[in-house]
């Protein structure tokens, strides 16, 4: 059994507000194996972007990491010094942030932006070696070499996203966190970019944490999936198991939401409103909207338990498997 490359233990990220702390991420525990594709799915307000940033220790005030551990190959990213974390970012763990396309510098050529990050980490690398590496990276993300000299505005959305991907893999990190990498892209381009991401992942053996809200995308891309609701994990398991036999009522409703191309039917949603994180419901945070709520649900917060090997769920309907 390969050891986990990334272990998140009880991570808590809160936001400071005048009305008290807003618990955006409240005790998330998950692990990633080398070369694995893990999907973190959640709607807006679930805390997924907050979590992605926190894993890179990029949380900005009024957000702050209240506690927990983020172990990258044993190294706790929360506890190391500022210097250390900067060495780790991009080299060991890379982020393709949300809206990455707009974060490209509009006045720098593509090749300079890719080389920039590498130069910062490998200061001794000669110019020619950097150029070579840059061309290698472009080829890996299926971009033509002549794009190196272009500016971001000359590229389409899909291409810009591939450039961000190239930057993310430039130092061959162990983990890539992709936060909604295709949300602004058309569905045709989305498929192309995701297929490229898949190829890159296979050739480099890097682990990918895909953060998003599109269940269809998750089904097509990831191997294991975690469902996030109001800052807590509701369910974790292999993507096939979670889709075919979801355990948590929220997961079931979430999978039923996207309309199909098979036949016309009634639109399905989840009744009620997403919870106010400043004043969450007592007990299980999903219970006001849950179709299977019991009296216990409004009193006690369910903890994430392993009910089958590799299957975790936070719901009072299930008891822990006896090992």
């Amino acid at each position, binding site marked *: 059994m390969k050891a986990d490359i990334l272990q998140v233990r009880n991570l808590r990220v809160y936001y400071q507000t005048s009305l008290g702390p807003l618990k955006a991420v409240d005790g998330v525990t998950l692990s990633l194996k080398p070369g694995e594709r893990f999907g973190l799915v959640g*709607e*807006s307000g679930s805390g997924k972007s907050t979590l992605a940033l926190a894993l890179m220790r990029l949380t900005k005030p009024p957000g702050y990491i209240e506690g927990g551990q983020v172990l990258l190959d044993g190294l706790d990213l929360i506890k190391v010094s500022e210097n250390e974390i900067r060495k780790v970012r991009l080299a060991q763990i890379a982020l393709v942030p949300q809206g990455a396309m707009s974060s490209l510098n509009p006045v720098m050529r593509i090749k300079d932006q890719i080389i920039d990050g590498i130069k910062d980490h490998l200061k001794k690398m000669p110019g020619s070696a950097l150029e070579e590496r840059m061309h290698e990276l472009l080829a890996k993300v*299926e*971009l*033509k070499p*002549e*794009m190196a000299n*272009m500016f971001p505005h*000359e*590229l*389409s*959305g*899909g*291409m810009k996203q591939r450039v961000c991907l190239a930057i993310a893999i430039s130092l061959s990190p162990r983990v890539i966190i992709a936060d909604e990498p295709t949300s602004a892209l*058309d*569905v*045709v381009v*989305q*498929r*192309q970019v*995701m*297929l490229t991401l898949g190829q890159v992942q296979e050739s480099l053996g890097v682990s990918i944490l895909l953060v998003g*809200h*599109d*269940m*269809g*995308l*998750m*089904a*097509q*891309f990831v191997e294991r999936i975690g469902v996030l609701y109001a800052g807590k994990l509701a369910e974790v398991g292999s*993507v*096939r198991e979670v*889709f075919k036999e979801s355990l948590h009522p929220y997961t079931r*409703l*979430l*999978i039923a*939401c*996207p*309309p*199909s*191309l098979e036949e*016309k*039917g*009634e*639109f*399905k*949603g*989840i009744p009620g*409103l*997403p919870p106010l994180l400043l004043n969450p419901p007592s007990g299980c945070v999903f219970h006001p909207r849950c179709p299977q709520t019991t009296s216990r649900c409004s009193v006690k917060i369910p903890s994430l338990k392993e009910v089958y090997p590799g299957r975790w769920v936070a719901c009072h309907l299930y008891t822990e498997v006896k090992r």
Partner: protein
Amino acid sequence: MTALLEACNVTKVFSSGGFFKRKETVALENVSLSIKESSPSITGVVGETGSGKTTLARLLLGFIAPTEGEVLYKGRDLQKMSRDERLEFQREVQVIFQDPFEVYNPFYKVDHVLTTPVAKFHLARSKTQGRKLIEHALQAIGLQPEETLGRYPHQLSGGQRQRIMVARASLLKPRIILADEPVSMVDASLRATILENLRKLNQKFGISLLYITHDLTTAYQISDNIIVLYQGSVVEVGDIELVIKNPQHPYTQLLVASIPVPDPDRSWGQDSTPVLVSKTSTKLNRGCKFVDRCPFAMPVCRENPPPFFQTDGYRAVRCYLYKDASVIAGNAIGKDVGPKR
């Protein structure tokens, strides 16, 4: 059969740039669309970025004028309407915009967006009557007036704000509602109610719907017939079941194949479409716009844009692959090609 709202061979060209270097972008080319008066229908307009669907929406609302062709409402050209005709048009054709936050003036409570049309279109004779009207409209959508009125936009969720917009659109009992990506900025779990609301408006009140989106699946669920746009031109049009279950145009086929199905056992498959080198569209291409990405491209595709081939009683495709079928004129599509029912 008279059409309520129709676009006849509409072309829109945007020119930008200074005095010496004018750049012309063809946003829409020869697009025709027709919403009938007699039977309320739901027409889906599907296209990705650059397809021209936003331009089409703005043309149909009269915000901009077509470069060629005309947009008619009840037979009258939108650009030539008198003030009274304009008011009638504004009352009978309502819009739901994409962004549920930007449509609210942050200075006012959400009531403002409901009370203004009531006042301006004289829908009620007194303030109390107006208030009642608004409350009924909200309740018909499934919203509680006590929970929504009197609040500021930022105090409500995106789904609630969008539903208030639907209620606003229904207030004036319009003939047509133009919904421009009404649910794309709303969470998946909240989309259902809004789409059900729209469907109910069509079924219960006989309001025709023009549903503009890039999301093929919601378009499939709600529409009766569909228009597929690619880079400003219509590529396929007709009954929704035919177009989606048996797409004929290579672009439509690509679109349907690219949708990620939430079923891990049904994979996307590999993709054979070449990735474009850069953003600049093929200006020199005088033929079919899809030719550079089309796996079935033939020499004739580059020379002239294909006409509409009616391959079925209820569907037409603009592709030389179907050149054996009979040709149908663009603006006849709305009249003769429509939903099966």
